[in-house]
């Protein structure tokens, strides 16, 4: 057995990382789609106030953090739906009010050298107890089931809200659902990467996935893969390199993103010579357009005189000449 698995706390930490690495990008892709990448940070700020109340009451901070984050998540959607110009400011007041109240209350209870505060702000994965793990497991399962079941609806509500509303979908309910899912994810992640780094784990694996995927489904799968890789890899690295787990996880996620972005740029450059844009012609190729359709690997070429035109985005590429 590798050394890392011989410690009880490391086994718990790895399991927690596995859960967080999987669910955070799963929810995050809808936030990327809605261009609300930073909303997780805001909810994390409010969750700190919940943690503080939990510590003050000598209660379970996870429960109070969950309550605070979920309430804030609902409030975010209600404020956004009212569409007032002051909505943005209302969110700022709520988010910064949350983190300020959290810091003040925790310092009042624990004293100014609070290790508690640091552990929630930057994560303390190795202190994950078996009880915490149970709670995280249940919450992760809820996130997983809801997101996968409502995947298409959340995709539509996030991608084209007006059409979703016109077709009769409960857009407000879907938006609140996403907001609550984000809040739950924040609470599950706060022990692992910390409240200040939560958005990173929801967003960065998705940024990497968008580089390689060609469909929403594939992007989701890639993002979960990158998320698990960075979370579990980060915990392992931090164990051997003796670094802070939360920060290591996020740096690893960013590293993966940079490597993939560079690799994709290289691939594009290397295949550029194969990509020749066809001459412009005032005609759209398509089934029954009058040009012979020839299956070519994963797409269809259209025979245009003595050469083939392959649809590529909004234009056509020249594919090899026909010799026969």
């Amino acid at each position, binding site marked *: 057995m590798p050394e890392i698995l011989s410690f009880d706390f490391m086994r718990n930490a790895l399991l927690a990382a596995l859960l967080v690495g999987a669910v955070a990008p799963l929810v995050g*892709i809808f936030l*990327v*789609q*809605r*261009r609300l990448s930073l909303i997780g940070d805001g909810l994390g700020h409010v969750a700190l106030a919940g943690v503080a109340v939990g510590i003050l009451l000598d209660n379970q901070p996870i429960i109070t953090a969950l309550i605070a984050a979920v309430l804030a998540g609902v409030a975010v959607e209600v404020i956004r739906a009212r569409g007032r110009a002051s909505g943005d400011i209302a969110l700022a007041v709520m988010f910064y009010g949350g983190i300020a109240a959290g810091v003040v209350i925790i310092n009042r209870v624990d004293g100014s050298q609070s290790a508690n505060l640091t552990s929630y702000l930057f994560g303390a994965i190795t202190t994950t107890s078996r009880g915490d793990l149970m709670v995280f497991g249940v919450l992760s399962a809820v996130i997983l089931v809801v997101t996968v*079941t*409502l995947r*298409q*609806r959340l*995709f*539509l509500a*996030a*991608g*084209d*809200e*007006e*059409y*979703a*509303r*016109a*077709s*009769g*979908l409960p857009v407000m309910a879907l938006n609140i659902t996403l907001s609550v899912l984000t809040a739950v994810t924040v609470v599950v992640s706060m022990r692992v990467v910390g409240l200040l780094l939560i958005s990173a784990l929801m967003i960065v694996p*998705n940024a990497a996935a*968008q580089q390689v*995927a*060609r*469909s*929403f*489904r*594939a*992007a989701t799968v890639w993002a979960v893969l990158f998320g698990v890789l960075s979370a579990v890899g980060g915990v392992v690295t931090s164990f051997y390199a003796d670094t802070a787990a939360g920060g290591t996880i996020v740096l690893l996620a960013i590293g993966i993103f940079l490597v993939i972005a560079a690799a994709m740029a290289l691939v594009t450059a290397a295949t550029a010579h194969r990509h020749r844009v066809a001459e412009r*012609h*005032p*005609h*759209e190729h*398509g*089934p*029954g*357009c009058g040009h012979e*359709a020839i299956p070519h690997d*994963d*797409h*269809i070429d259209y025979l245009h005189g003595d050469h083939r035109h392959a*649809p*590529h*985005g*909004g*234009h056509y590429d020249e594919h090899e000449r026909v010799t026969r």
Partner: protein
Amino acid sequence: MRVSTTQHTPADAPAVRLDHAAFGYAGRPFTEGINLAVPQGEVIALLGPNGSGKSTLVRGLLGLNDQVGGTVTLFGTPLDHLTDRSRLGYVPQRHTLSASVRSTVREVISTGQLASRPWWRRASANDRATVTKAADTVGLADRLDADVATLSGGQQRRVLIARALASQPDMLIMDEPTAGVDAANQDVLATVLRRLARLGVTMLVVTHELAALRGIVDRIVEMDAGRVSFDGTPLQYAEHRAQVSRAADSGLAGADHSGARHHLAFDEHHHDDGPVESPGLLSGVGPMDGPVEGKDS
């Protein structure tokens, strides 16, 4: 596309009937006293300058604006009792699809079916076949796996039409389907709309570019200042525009001359681009066509 037969609609009920209808926001009407009946199977072009209330009307039918007065029935059902919104297929004007994440043509078209099935049910083989067919109807069957964000504006517009078709609606409501689309794609769009019209799909098309819909439109409704200012056939609309133009010219010289030139202009614009275009159907009249040219000369 199959026109749905499972729903209970009196056969003679118009697709849309507006009786002194008023639409607006927060109880404040933007359009008032609109009377309009759209028989099933008819293709109507809805014209009017910006701010004339045509968008308010259309958004009202779609449930995006409030109905603040009068009576509105869709397929014989009062608007506020309409539970099955999928009977109206909406093709938005803007390319409102978020380009922030990857999604394929199939994934986007499939979302058109979501409202017609319960949230726990996944797409059936039948649903997927309908999606493929919708893509075929708009000529994008070979692009089902393409990333939507890489398509041209006109192709994206056709994706939105296919998305509306995927729910097998009884009526399509389109907002400026041809605006900002290049000529090759306008041709394809016109072919698609003509194909749908021939299948008997009721269509309400908000447009500024009547010329692009030549031979497809059965009837033209023009709105101005929140009211219907014209309602008739394309031929009558041409005469209406000519009269408006003559009235505007009567203060100047040569009213008759301008009218004659104006009809000549129509003949020049009019060329057959569809096999079943009836000769009497003169609908190649953009609001900027004819009359303005006549006035200039």
